[in-house]
C-alpha cells in the first residue's frame, strides 16, 4: 500500500514536470503539442550524450548514497539549453510559420509530425536498446517496516527525484508570481492583445515559454531515466499520462498540472496490482476518460 503510493508519486513527479510544460505551452501558444513527450526523450538522451563526453570513458564517482555523481548534474546543465534549443528550432521552423495561416488543428497535426521526426532521430543516433546513466546498483532503504501498511522501501535516487520536483515546482511558482517575465507569461495567456498594450513583447514571451517548457521536460526526462530506463519511446509512452494530468488539472493551470501529475502517477501505480504491470497506462486512460466525462474543464477548471 505505502509502496504503491511512493511508486506512484515518483512516476507522478515525472508526469507533473512534463504536464506543467505542456499546460504552459498550451495556454500561451493555444495548441496541444503532441511533440512535448519527445522533449523529455531528447532531454534524457542529450544528458546521456553530455555525460559520455564529460566522463570520456572514466567511471562516475557517486555522490554519497546516490547512484550518480557530479558529472550527471553537469551534463543536465548542458542538456537544458540544448533541449530548449530544439524546442525553439521546431517552433521557428514549423509552428510559428503554420500559426500565421493555419488553425489549431493544423498545429496539432504538425506536432504529431514533429514528434515522429524527433523520435526517429533519437533511434537513428542512439539505437533502440535501453541505456542507463549509471550501472551502479542502489540499495533501497527500508523507511517503513513490512508489517506497517505493507512497508516502504525507497532508493536515495527516488527520494531525491521527489525533493527536486518539489523544489522545481516551488521555483516555477515564484517565477510566475513575482518576476516580470513570469507575470507577462500569465498576462499573455489571458489576453495577448492586452499584453501588447501593457508593453509585453509577445513573441519574446512565447520563446520564453518554449524554453521553460523544454527545460522542465528535460528535467523530467532525466528523472525518468534515473528511476527507470532511457529508451527512444520513453517520452511517447508518457504522452497519455501528460495529457491526462494537464486536462485533469484544468488546461493552463500550473498547480493543477502538478496535482494532476501526481494523481495520474498514483492511478498508474494502483493499476499494477489490479491488472498487471503491462496495463499501467490503463490508469492514465481511466483518469482521462473519467475527467472528460465528469468535468471536462478539469478539477480546478481554467480560470475564465
Amino acid at each position: 500500500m505505502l509502496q504503491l503510493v511512493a511508486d506512484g508519486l515518483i512516476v507522478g513527479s515525472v508526469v507533473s514536470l512534463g504536464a506543467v510544460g505542456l499546460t504552459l505551452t498550451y495556454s500561451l501558444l493555444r495548441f496541444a503539442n503532441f511533440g512535448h513527450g519527445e522533449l523529455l526523450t531528447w532531454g534524457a538522451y542529450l544528458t546521456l550524450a553530455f555525460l559520455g563526453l564529460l566522463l570520456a570513458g572514466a567511471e562516475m564517482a557517486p555522490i554519497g548514497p546516490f547512484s550518480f555523481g557530479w558529472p550527471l548534474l553537469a551534463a543536465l546543465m548542458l542538456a537544458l539549453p540544448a533541449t530548449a534549443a530544439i524546442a525553439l528550432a521546431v517552433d521557428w521552423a514549423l509552428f510559428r510559420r503554420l500559426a500565421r495561416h493555419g488553425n489549431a488543428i493544423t498545429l496539432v497535426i504538425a506536432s504529431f509530425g514533429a514528434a515522429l521526426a524527433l523520435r526517429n532521430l533519437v533511434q537513428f543516433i542512439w539505437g533502440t536498446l535501453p541505456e542507463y546513466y549509471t550501472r551502479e546498483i542502489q540499495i533501497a532503504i527500508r523507511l517503513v517496516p513490512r508489517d506497517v501498511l505493507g512497508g516502504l522501501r525507497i532508493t536515495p535516487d527516488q527520494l531525491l527525484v521527489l525533493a527536486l520536483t518539489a523544489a522545481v515546482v516551488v521555483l516555477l511558482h515564484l517565477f510566475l508570481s513575482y518576476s516580470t517575465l513570469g507575470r507577462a507569461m500569465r498576462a499573455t495567456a489571458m489576453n495577448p492583445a492586452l499584453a501588447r498594450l501593457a508593453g509585453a513583447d509577445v513573441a519574446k514571451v512565447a520563446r520564453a515559454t518554449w524554453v521553460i517548457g523544454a527545460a522542465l521536460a528535460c528535467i523530467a526526462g532525466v528523472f525518468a531515466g534515473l528511476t527507470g530506463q532511457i529508451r527512444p519511446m520513453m517520452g511517447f509512452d508518457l504522452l497519455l499520462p501528460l495529457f491526462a494530468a494537464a486536462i485533469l488539472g484544468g488546461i493552463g493551470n500550473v498547480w493543477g498540472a502538478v496535482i494532476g501529475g501526481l494523481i495520474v502517477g498514483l492511478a498508474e501505480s494502483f493499476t499494477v496490482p489490479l491488472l498487471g504491470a503491462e496495463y499501467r497506462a490503463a490508469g492514465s486512460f481511466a483518469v482521462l476518460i473519467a475527467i472528460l466525462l465528469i468535468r471536462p474543464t478539469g478539477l480546478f477548471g481554467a480560470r475564465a
Partner: protein
Amino acid sequence: MSALAAREVVAGYEPGLPIVKGASLSVAGGEIVALLGPNGAGKSTLAKAMAGLVPVASGAVLLQGSDITAVPAHLRLKRGLGFVPQTENVFANLTVRENLELAASLAGLDRRAAREEMFGFFPDLARLARLEAGRLSGGQRQMLAVARALLAKPAALMLDEPSAGLSPRYVAEVFAMLARVRQAGVAILLVEQNVKAALELADRAVVLVDGTVRLDEPARPLLGDPRLPALFLGAREHA
C-alpha cells in the same frame, strides 16, 4: 503641435477591405476629443490602429510630432501612448497590484513607485490591491484599466467606451477622473456612445461615419445640433 494625431489613416482587418477610410484627427495636450459615430462606423478600429493592434494600410499616426506608425504595439505605452480597449481591458487572472506592476516593469519603471503613485491617484484601487482583477466591479475595472494606461505618464490616452455597461454613478466617476487626467496635461481621445455626456465633457468632437470623418468641431455647441442625429440616422435609431 498636437500630442496625438491620425493623418489620412486607412486601416482594416483584412488587406483590401478598409474599415477606416482615410481618417484624420488631432488632440492637443490637456484637450479631450470625443470620437463619436454610429455603431460599426469604425471608431474602435481607428483607435486600435492608432494603438498598433490593427495594421495601418496607409497614412500615419503621430505622437508629439513623431511618426509612430511603424512602432510595435508593445513599445507604444513606453513611448507615451496609452490605450484602454473597450472590452477585456484588465488581466482577470492577475491581482490589481500585479496588473499595475507588470505594466510598470515592462515600461522600465520602478514597479513599487509606479504602483504607489497610481494608488495615490485612485485610492479605491489601493484598497483592492490583492484582489484578482476578474472580481472587480465594472467601475473598478475601468479605473484599473485607466491606471494601467497612465502608469508611464503618457502624453496621450485613448479610451474606447469607458462608460459602457456602467451604472450612472460610475459613469460620472469615470468622467470626473478623465477631467482630472486632462488637468495633468494629457491629450485624451475618448470614443463614446453616450453622446450627450461626451459632448458635455469634451473640448472638441469628431464624428466618424462609415470610416470617414464627417464633422470636427468644438463639442459644446454640438449639443442639440440637428446635424448630429442626421449623421447617426440610418445606422441607428436616435432617441
